[in-house]
Every structure is written in C-alpha cells, then in structure tokens.
C-alpha cells in the first residue's frame, strides 16, 4: 500500500492540469462551470482541442490514437478534465462506438471511421433503447432485413441523447427473429442520419431542455458493409460497450467541482453558518472522497473490456451523489430557484437560476445508462451470488 503518487504520475498530473486549464477555451469551461448547456460547436471545439494533443481517446488502441496509460493515469486524466470544467470527449464516439469498431470492426471500417470519430468530425448517436425496451434492452424490436447487399431497417429508438446533433447513429437491430434466445439474433449496424427514412424528433424533458430524441427508421436502406463485425454478434458488442460505459460513469471530478462551487454559494448567502447545511456539505464531501477512492481501487483492477464487478458501485453511488449535490444546490438557492427563466438582467445569480432545472435534469442519472435497479441486480446477482 502506498499513498503518494510516483514522480511520473505527479508529472503527468501537472501536465494534464496545465493542458486543461490553459489550452481549452475559457468560454467553454466557463459555460460548463455555470451549468449551462453547451452548443454543438463548443463540444466539437473542445474535443478537437483534446484530439490535437492526443488527449481525446487515450483508452483506444495505440494504433488509433490511444495512449498506453495506466488505469491510474486514465483516472487522473478524467479527474483533471472534470475539475477544469473541460467537457469530456463525446461518450458515444470515444467510449462507445469507437472502442467497438476498434475491437470488432474490419480494418477497412477502422480506417474509415476511427479518425473522424476521435476528432468528432462524425458525431455519433446511440440507437439502443426502444419505447418498449427500457431496462430490458434485449427485447428490442427494431428489425434489419437483408435485401441483396443492403440492410433495410424498420423500427423506433428512443432516449437518443444529443441525437439532434448526430451525423451517424449506431443501431442495435434484430436480424434473426427466430433465434432461440432474445439476446441472440441482434446485430449492430451503422446508419448515416441523413439516410432517407430516418426521422429524429427531440423529446422535451421536464427541465425544459431537449437533449434526448426519438428516432424512427422507415425502410431505411444502408449498404451491407455498415454491419459492424459479424451478423448476430450485436449483443456481445452491446455488453462490451456497456461495460466500458460503466467504468467511466462515476463523474467524481464533475460532482466534486459542483460541490465546491455549491460551498462557495452557500458561503455567499450565509448558509455555511447553518450547522445542519454545513454538515450536509461536509458529509457529501466525505461520501465523494469514498467514491473517488473506490474508483481508484476499482480502476486499478479492471482489465480491458472486463470491468471490475464493483464498477456497479461506482455507477450506483456516483448517481446518488450527483443527485444529492444538485438537490442541495436548490436548497442553497432557496426561493431564488424560482427565477429559473429569468434573463441576464436579473439580480438573481445565474447559479441559483440554473439550480432547479439542473436538479430535475439529473433525476435521469439514476435511470439512463443502466438504471440503479439494474446496478443493484448486477451486484446482487454477479457479486453476491443472490
């Protein structure tokens, strides 16, 4: 056991910190800090800044821009990025379809897609969830049928985050409806969003934002070479992808930063003198510390594509704390949270105005990406043997 970072890791951290705080546009970082929604252009700019420095896809194979970092270094990279309010690389690109193509795709497919995926020249959307298949992903109904060399896709996807910005979408389709188990007979197909028959409709959420979408596929025809890997191998890819998703899914740095600014606002409004509120902050800080240390423990013992079983703890507790911090921020704002729709001329500070929509928005955190019930199921079943 050893507390201190090695000299290499300390240097690495300094390097990351310097890059994130000096090289990424401050307007973008300020917008993140304030809890504002970013524009597509801002997200693209940030990722291209990272990619130019080789910092967008460190977990990818080295041949495609990855870095042979240790798990600890990857953790430091993510922490420093979040603490510096740098928007992380688009997860659909760098955490999902990129690794899937790198692992399962043909050489031709890699060459065609990986570079623009890393650089966010292609914006990917995730076509997994369906209206009748929420947590029960494998019961999906969207069908893809061979027609000559092409695939013809019919069905509907939903909860497609930021789909309104997408250039392409990776879609789980049922390609063998007669397979004995529902997990079999699923394939992963890439679809240009501009293809005829694809319709994207934003879904307005309760915080007023439109970050998720419904996507319809009506006789959508794509060339056969847009199948990733082999036919009916889709469930394997989905599990691979969701495993990757879970490891990076506890945004500890982001929550720490939010709590730090919350503390500052609490001081401004005099609430740091309220022992009850102050103890909630102090205990949340401690909870976050335990979570971060757990991430360090878990990350170190994960191997590629095979997350440590306890990574479900990170997702579960990560969202619990994200939600606790956003809830507490509304408490700090108090009645000023009602001024959520006020303009810049309002005397109500910006952070108080965004607090309630942020709180409402983050109720999603324990639902999307494998709900907390699914995480408990995984822990009870896979870890505890129940």
């Amino acid at each position: 056991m050893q507390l201190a970072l090695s000299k290499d890791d300390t240097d690495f951290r300094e390097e990351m910190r310097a890059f994130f705080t000096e090289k990424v546009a401050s307007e973008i970082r300020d917008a993140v800090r304030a809890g504002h929604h970013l524009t597509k252009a801002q997200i693209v700019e940030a990722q291209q800044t990272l990619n130019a420095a080789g910092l967008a896809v460190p977990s990818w194979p080295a041949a495609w821009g990855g870095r042979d970092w240790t798990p600890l270094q990857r953790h430091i990279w993510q922490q420093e990025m979040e603490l510096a309010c740098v928007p992380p690389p688009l997860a659909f690109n760098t955490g999902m379809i990129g690794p899937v193509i790198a692992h399962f795709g043909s050489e031709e497919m890699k060459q065609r897609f990986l570079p623009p995926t890393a650089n966010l020249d292609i914006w990917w959307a995730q076509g997994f969830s369906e209206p009748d298949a929420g947590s029960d992903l494998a019961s999906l109904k969207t069908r893809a049928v061979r027609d000559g060399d092409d695939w013809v896709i019919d069905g509907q996807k939903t909860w497609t985050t930021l789909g309104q910005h997408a250039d392409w979408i990776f879609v789980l389709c049922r390609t063998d409806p007669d397979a004995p188990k529902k997990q079999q007979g699923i394939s992963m197909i890439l679809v240009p969003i501009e293809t005829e028959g694809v319709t994207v409709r934003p879904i307005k959420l309760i915080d007023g934002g439109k970050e998720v979408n419904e996507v319809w596929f009506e006789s959508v025809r794509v060339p056969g070479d847009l199948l990733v890997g082999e036919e009916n191998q889709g469930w394997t890819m989905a599990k691979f992808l969701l495993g990757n998703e879970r490891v990076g899914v506890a945004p500890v740095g982001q929550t720490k930063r939010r709590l730090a600014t919350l503390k500052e606002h609490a001081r401004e409004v005099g609430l740091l003198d309220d022992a009850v509120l102050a103890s909630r902050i102090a205990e949340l800080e401690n909870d976050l510390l335990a979570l971060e240390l757990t991430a360090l423990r878990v990350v170190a013992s994960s191997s590629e594509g095979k997350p440590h079983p306890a990574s479900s703890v990170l997702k579960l507790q990560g969202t619990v704390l994200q939600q606790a911090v956003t809830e507490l921020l509304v408490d700090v704002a108090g009645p000023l949270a009602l001024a959520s729709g006020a303009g810049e001329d309002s005397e109500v500070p910006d952070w108080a105005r965004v607090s309630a929509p942020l709180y409402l928005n983050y109720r999603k955190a324990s639902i999307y990406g494998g709900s907390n019930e699914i995480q408990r199921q995984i822990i009870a079943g896979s870890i505890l043997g129940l």
Partner: protein
Amino acid sequence: MDFTLDSEQKALRDAVRSLFSSFDNEQRRAVVAEDPGFSEEQWGRMAEMGLLGLPYAEADGGMGAGPVELSLVAEELGRVVAPEPYVETVVLAGGLVAALGTAEQKQDVLGAISAGERVVAAALLEPATRWDLAADGVVEKDGTLTGTKEPVLVGGRADQLVVSARVDDGLGFFLVSPGEGVTVTSYATFDGGRAARVVLDGAPAQRLGDGSVDPHAALARVVAAAKIAYCHEALGLMESALRRTTEYLTQRKQFGVTLNRFQALTFRAADMYTSVELTRSIVEWASMVLADAGSTPEQVTEAARRAKLQVSKAGRHVGQEAIQLHGGIAMTDEYAVGHMTARLTAIDHLLGDGREQSRHLVASLGDHEVLDPLR
C-alpha cells in the same frame, strides 16, 4: 377531534374535481407554453363557482368559507397539477388585503379577485434575501415605492401588486398597479408557472390599512395560511404521483412481466404510500388548527411549519421515487409525473423549505415536553 368532511365540503370537493376532470397533461402543456401560464377561461369558471372569493367575507364579495374549504380546492388543483395561481392570488395576496386593508380596500380588491376581474400578486421576496419576508430592499417615500422585488410569482400577469416595503415605523404593505414607475419583466419558472422581476422607481403606492393592525402579525398568519394551502396542493400532487406510479407498475412490462412483479419496486411504492398517508394526517391537522378559533397565533405558525416540514420531506421522497419507478418516461414533458415533481420542488422552496421550518422548530424545542395534538 374529527377528520371527516361534512356533506357541503364533499360537494365542494367534487365540484372542483369535476371542473378539472378533463384537464390533462396535453392541455396543461398548451396552457403553460403561452403567457400568462394558466387558463383565463378556467380562472373565470373558478370565479363563477365562488372559488376565488372562498375565504373572504361575504361583505367583500367572498363566500366566508374557512381554511378547510380552501384546502380542498388547493388539493384538487394539486391533483391535476393545475397552473392557476390560486394560492398566490387568493391566499397570499388577497389574504394580506383581507388582513390589513381598510373596509374600502377590501371591498375593492377582494371583490375584484372574487369576481375574477383582477389577478393580484404578492411582491414580497427580494433577490438578496431568502425567506425574510420583512425584507426592506424596497423603501417608501412620499407615497411612492422604490426598489426591486424578485421573484414575484404571477407578477407579469398581475393587475395589481401587494408590495412589502420599509416605512418609517417599520414594515408596510402597499397596493401598486403596473404603470408609472413600475417595470415588470416576466419569465417562466421551472414548474411551468410565471414569475417576474418588479423594479419600482417612485411607483405610486397606496398603503394597505389604517395602521390599526400589526403588519408582522398579519403577515405571519397569512404566510401560515399560504403554507398550509401549499401543503394541501402538495398533498394532491403526491397522491396523483403515487396513483400514476402504481398504475404504471401494473401496466408496464419489462423482462416479460409487468413491473409489479418486481418486489423491490412494489416495496418502494409502499413506502411512498406511507409518506403520503403521514403527510395527509399532519396537513389536515394544520388546516384544523388554522380553522380553530381557539388557536393562538403561535400555534397557527407552528402548525404551518410542522406541515411544511413534513411536505418538504415527503414531497422529495414521493417526487423522486415517482420518476425513478417510472423510468425515462417520467423525465419527459409529455408525461405528467415529472411536472408533479417539479411543482413539488417549487412548493418546497416557497415560504421556507424543510430546513427552514426545522430551524424554527428547534428554537422552541425546549418549550414542551411532548407534543400533544389533542386539545
């Protein structure tokens, strides 16, 4: 002690329920999308039914009903997440006029509210304060007011404002009409309502009352009444959120079976039910304390705090769980449950959240050995 409604009260409840029986989330979305954020037609119907003048004296155009009747209306509005500014106008703004106004002011303002002719808003909060309603960022001078109030609920639609302000002898309340010296900037609130920034710059103002009533005591009672009314609105919201959740659990299929086959989910629904039942008990009790002629001002204030503390806790629990047990669908604007949670969140932070109530209850912790709700 008796928790049952009499037949007139039941009839009132049924009438309000009937008035909103066809009001669904689709209608609500259409209504809150456009200013003023509620339905003027429905407001008119509420006036016709006598709901807008419910608590006022008959001499002032009202119905002379009590807090229990008022609570029934608030609860039904909560049940359907109605956006009409009932508590804001009838209980809070109108309540201040009823408590402080001269006979003439009461007849004028309360008559107009009751008839649905005038929407009145209470402008109490200021950007630099939290729940200190005796804030003094607005100052009276020579019959005019100067300063800023924000957020002022329904401020953009209001035909008249009741404004708290600092006067030579302390706290005063004034009637202000939009116009000269008044700049109102309206915006949407996260619960689908509207609030406004009201900048007063030498705005002509008419002081409420003749100085014979202690404004602090009047404010305390009106705020207590508004808290209790909000608690009933929240109770209606929670009952609806629970009902929606149990319906969804029996209908939605996952992994080949309906969700009510998952014990972990049904137990959480049971805990929601527990929260709602406990809330109903304390909220109805608070209305009874408010209605009882023998209650002291301190008892009324305390009862309102107790109800609101419970509503804060239960509202978070029920609102959060209702979304979680539904899953993604409840995050969408098209589905009602998320709006219930949003409105519960707003109510939690109006007139003091749970911690604020608790802070005051702690201060009087040593005044009693046990709490005794029986009298």
